[in-house]
């Protein structure tokens, strides 16, 4: 399990509008592409300095590929990163203010503290 890589995916996709849209429309394809091309790109470094070892587990890949924010929460993905990206992708689908955020919280209503550890 690589919570770091999960968070890196959420972080990099959220801050690039074209990637956000690509992930909304084609989650499985975007995750596959990102893992192959972007996961080992060290941020702020050139391609020559790519790392070699970062990859998702099957469970992580599946959660990202299915937009399963509940599974990501259970894995300990940072909740701020997940929520921010979900707002970017899905808030537009709701008519009432904060409708998406309330639905997002309701889907986690079963969760009690302590929540999963978000330390990488």
């Amino acid at each position, binding site marked *: 399990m690589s919570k770091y890589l999960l968070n890196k995916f959420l*972080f990099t996709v959220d801050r690039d509008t074209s990637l956000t849209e690509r992930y909304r429309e084609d989650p499985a394809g975007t995750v596959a592409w990102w893992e192959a091309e972007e996961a080992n790109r060290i941020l702020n470094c050139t391609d020559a300095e790519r790392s070699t070892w970062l990859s998702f587990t099957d469970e992580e890949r599946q959660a990202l590929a299915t937009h399963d924010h509940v599974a990501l929460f259970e894995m300990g993905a940072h909740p701020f990163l997940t929520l921010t990206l979900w707002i970017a992708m899905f808030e537009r689908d709701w008519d009432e203010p904060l409708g998406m955020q309330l639905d997002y919280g309701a889907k986690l209503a079963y969760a009690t503290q302590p929540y999963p550890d978000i330390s990488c």
Partner: protein
Amino acid sequence: MAKLVAILATTHHPFYYQTSQLPADQAPPFAADWVRKVEAYRETLTRAQPDVLVMVGSDHFHQLWLDNMPQFLVGKAPFYDGNWENEIREFGMPKLFFQGHEELSAYLLREGIDRGFDLAFSHELRVDHSITCPILTVRPQNDLPIVPIYTNIFAPPLPRPERFVQLGTTIREIIDAWPSEMRVAVIGSGHLSLELGGPRQFGPHGPDPDFDAQAVDWIKNGDIDGVLSNVTLESLHAPGNATHGFMDFMLMMGIAGYAKADYADNLDLFHTMEAYFTWYPDPSLVPGLPLTSNGAL
């Protein structure tokens, strides 16, 4: 020596700017009360007539992230851009541009390191809403140079609450010793109980109103011992999964020392409690203020 003319500790609600821009017939029912409280709070800074602002905030995974995370960072640039694309997207916030104060940044860094804090620094910093929101509320003309100080309240392992208080105490010592004639105000922003990305988010109130009431009481009474004996890094999860931002209020209590706030106000909003505090370390420096000021202005 420099004059520390005011210390402000405030929440940073990213929806305020957009809400305050709405025409009355489109604004939510709480908007007028919110604007009125913010404008009253703004006066507590205006009357202190500062020349430079030290701004304490917490980056929300914008500039700082898990690939290289400092615990405390001081900006040391001549200028700063403000707000990020996802803040503009989510909150309707404007892009901002700030003048920095490199001399004070350098002084804070040198003195802070010498006094036991291994501070990180950055010459290229885009500040986010923990700093831009207080500017939009208490200094919307954005006409003063700033020194941003960022804290890590997001990415475990975090500094413990007492470390935030200690840093505040140290910042106070450094500003008081700064060989300058400038009038300095420190503005720090955080939040009370807060849940983000969890089941209790965006409720009708903050996730833990009892914690919020206690927190307001601690802050306005300068009860550093009370808060330190009741709050731990571990306990702060209970009032909401993002409540560690309260430690930025604790940092500001460290700057103010054990003094009661000269101004305290709060407003219960959906999903959070807004709270506003101001201290005047030397009331004689604030025009029109009685030498002993204690209570709401």
